[in-house]
């Protein structure tokens, strides 16, 4: 064996064995490609999930049909729920405007004005009527904001859970990235091996054309000459006994010119 011989390990193997080896590698390449696609889709899905979950994107990523990613799916659901709570809170605050503590502060001021004698700056009847209405509107506003506390609590809990989940997804994604790197490396090796096997098989291919017994038989039946290899092939395939004298109709001989050519021609003698 020569040093640096690329095909050293293949030289002792049968052609069929190498071919089966090639087939095996081609199958495994298809496998690797499938795994790579699956893992890359998974990474892409996780990345979209994280973007959505941290609020960098408003579009809910479509869940991939080909694989199940429970953690990312669960986090997505949590973020959707979180967004719903935010919307609920915003809608409520758009209606009420003031937060609870400001409502209480304002109620206290209004109550003081309505119930305490304030020396020379006494209220007019109209001011009193307006403040009376405002006091009870503030009371109603405060009551309307009761669900806010529950919403804020839920938002806090969901926010913590989503943060934890995003960390876990990121960790899983790093693991997947390692798998993808390993698969890429494996794919490189497999492709290289396939190339090597194909190259070896190409180098082992006979250079001359295989002997065609049929063609040899045809040549004999037409009266032509055949080589030794053709003869061997003919003997291997039924011998000379069944050669039919199926002479192809020879092309019409041209009228020989009166003056025969003096040129040398192959296979016929000039007489």
């Amino acid at each position: 064996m020569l040093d640096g011989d690329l095909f050293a390990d293949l030289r002792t193997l049968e052609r069929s064995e190498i071919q089966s080896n090639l087939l095996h590698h081609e199958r495994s390449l298809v496998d690797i490609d499938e795994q790579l696609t699956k893992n890359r889709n998974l990474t892409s899905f996780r990345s979209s999930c994280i973007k959505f979950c941290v609020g960098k994107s408003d579009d809910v990523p479509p869940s991939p049909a080909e694989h199940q990613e429970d953690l990312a799916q669960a986090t997505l659901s949590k973020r959707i729920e979180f967004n719903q709570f935010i919307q609920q809170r915003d809608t409520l605050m758009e209606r009420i405007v003031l937060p609870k503590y400001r409502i209480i502060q304002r109620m206290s001021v209004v109550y003081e004005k309505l119930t305490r004698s304030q020396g020379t700056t006494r209220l007019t009847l109209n001011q009193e009527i307006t403040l009376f209405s405002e006091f009870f509107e503030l009371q109603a506003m405060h009551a309307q904001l009761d669900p806010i506390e529950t919403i804020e609590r839920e938002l806090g809990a969901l926010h913590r859970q989503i943060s934890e989940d995003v960390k876990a997804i990121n960790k899983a994604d790093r693991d997947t990235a390692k798998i993808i790197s390993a698969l890429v490396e494996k794919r490189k090796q497999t492709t290289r091996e396939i190339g090597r096997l194909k190259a070896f098989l190409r180098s082992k291919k006979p250079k001359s054309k295989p002997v065609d017994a049929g063609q040899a038989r045809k040549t004999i039946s037409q009266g032509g000459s055949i080589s030794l290899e053709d003869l061997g092939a003919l003997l291997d395939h039924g011998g000379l006994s069944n050669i039919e004298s199926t002479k192809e109709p020879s092309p019409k001989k041209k009228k020989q010119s009166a003056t025969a050519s003096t040129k040398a021609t192959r296979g016929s003698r000039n007489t």
Partner: protein
Amino acid sequence: MQDKSLLEVSPHELLDIILTKREKDAIHLPKEEKKRDEELTRAYKMYNESKTALAQLLDSTSGTEADPLKRSQAENVIEENETHRKRVMSRLWRVRSHLKETLAAIEYWSVMDEAKLTTLLEGATRVNEGGLSTFAMNKSALSEQGDDSHA
């Protein structure tokens, strides 16, 4: 009053408190009015006296020029008394106006029926039924005005 207990005040309770306060004012204000009235009488008297003093000074020096210092002092006293009189009168008018307002308020709050109360509680009812608060309406009106001015 504790902040949280404000949430439990009913319209009728607040109405009673307002009415009680107004009735107390209605008792107190006539006394104050009388006091201011007497004060005004005194202020008028002082003003008139200072005017008489100046007239006497001018009469005592008939034909000759009055002492400029004494004349200036007398004129200053008149001005001071006039300012005081005006101030006292303004106080009296204010007390009278408060008294009038108080009597009108007592009349308004003491005959409060359910229909009137429902009108007063329109804002609260709207908010309870899921509508916008007055603060929200004012805010959107303000932003609309802002949009219009920018357009």
